[in-house]
């Protein structure tokens, strides 16, 4: 499946989508019922749309299953490869931190054009966290989809009001008091990701092995890159994501 680069998105800026946005009024319960109803309607619409795609031969069930898997994989797309190279190659790291996308272009990483890229480096002195308090700005074209909580209102609110408490409550991450916590609030034109610190016990590992230690959470500052033993535990517990039901033709 090919996604056009000029696709319609960002409902609040696009009149085409704006008119479709529904509003609900009344008490919280009434509004929730309204939203539930919308979700059912959209689900119905989606199923009809998917069936139409399949019937016309524009997509197959295999395409959809593959895309579903891709979107639900825990592994960040190119994030792991980029970070591993930065850990292994000081010159590349310097280029990545100072020129962003340019460094990636030279590396041959596939990327779209979602804004200027800024990479912020975690160190013994600074821990960086990324958020978009307005919506969900994120370097999608490089890292793939966000984790679910990135778009959640509680994260988007709490991370700028009380960042230390927020990362502790949501991600069990206790940032040492000696470190400055820096929260980066993206507003669309610049997209950020975090260069996590290289974990302990990774000496002598190849870039390919290192890339597997990079979690999507660590690229947002909601976690650290994994130590090799943590990766092994994760892989042992891995469960395949389940495809949502599509109504039979």
């Amino acid at each position: 499946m090919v996604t056009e680069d000029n696709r319609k998105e960002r409902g609040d800026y696009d009149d085409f989508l704006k008119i479709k946005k529904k509003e609900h009024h009344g008490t919280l319960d009434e509004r929730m019922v309204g939203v539930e109803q919308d979700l059912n309607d959209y689900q119905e619409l989606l199923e009809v749309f998917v069936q139409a795609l399949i019937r016309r031969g524009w997509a197959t069930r295999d395409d959809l299953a593959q895309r579903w898997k891709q979107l639900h994989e825990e592994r960040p797309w190119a994030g792991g490869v980029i970070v591993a190279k930065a850990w292994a190659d000081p010159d590349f790291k310097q280029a990545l931190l100072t020129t962003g996308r340019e460094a990636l272009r030279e590396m041959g990483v596939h990327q779209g054009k979602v804004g200027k890229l800024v990479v912020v480096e975690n160190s013994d002195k600074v821990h960086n966290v990324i958020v978009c308090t307005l919506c969900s700005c994120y370097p999608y074209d490089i890292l793939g989809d966000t984790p679910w909580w990135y778009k959640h209102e509680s994260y988007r609110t709490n991370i700028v009001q009380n960042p230390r408490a927020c990362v502790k409550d949501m991600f069990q991450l206790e940032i040492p008091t000696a470190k400055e916590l820096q929260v980066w609030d993206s507003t669309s034109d610049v997209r950020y990701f975090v260069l996590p610190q290289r974990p302990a016990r990774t000496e002598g590992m190849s870039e390919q092995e290192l890339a597997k230690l990079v979690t999507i959470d660590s690229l947002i500052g909601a976690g650290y890159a994994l130590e090799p033993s943590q990766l092994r535990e994760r892989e042992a517990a891995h469960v395949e994501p389940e495809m949502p039901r599509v109504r039979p033709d």
Partner: protein
Amino acid sequence: MSDTISKYKIGDAVMVAAENPTGNPRTPRYIRGKRGVIGLVHGILENVRDHRGIHKPLYTVRFDLSEVSTCHEQDSIWVDVHEEWLTELKQDS
């Protein structure tokens, strides 16, 4: 990192306008009327996907956490703000 189109440079103390009806609407409420320091200078970025038209030069402004929330840790919040929202903060004011 400075250029001729951007009015401010890294380290300049700035104040975000409390309101700005014609400014770029993607300026979060919690930094409006707050004081910060220019952290990054981006110049004019074209973003035809998200915006109509071209906006004024963009900066990443560093705010002390205590300036924008009730917390007092020595942490910081860095937010992208366009130039029309900013005024220079004189050292003696």
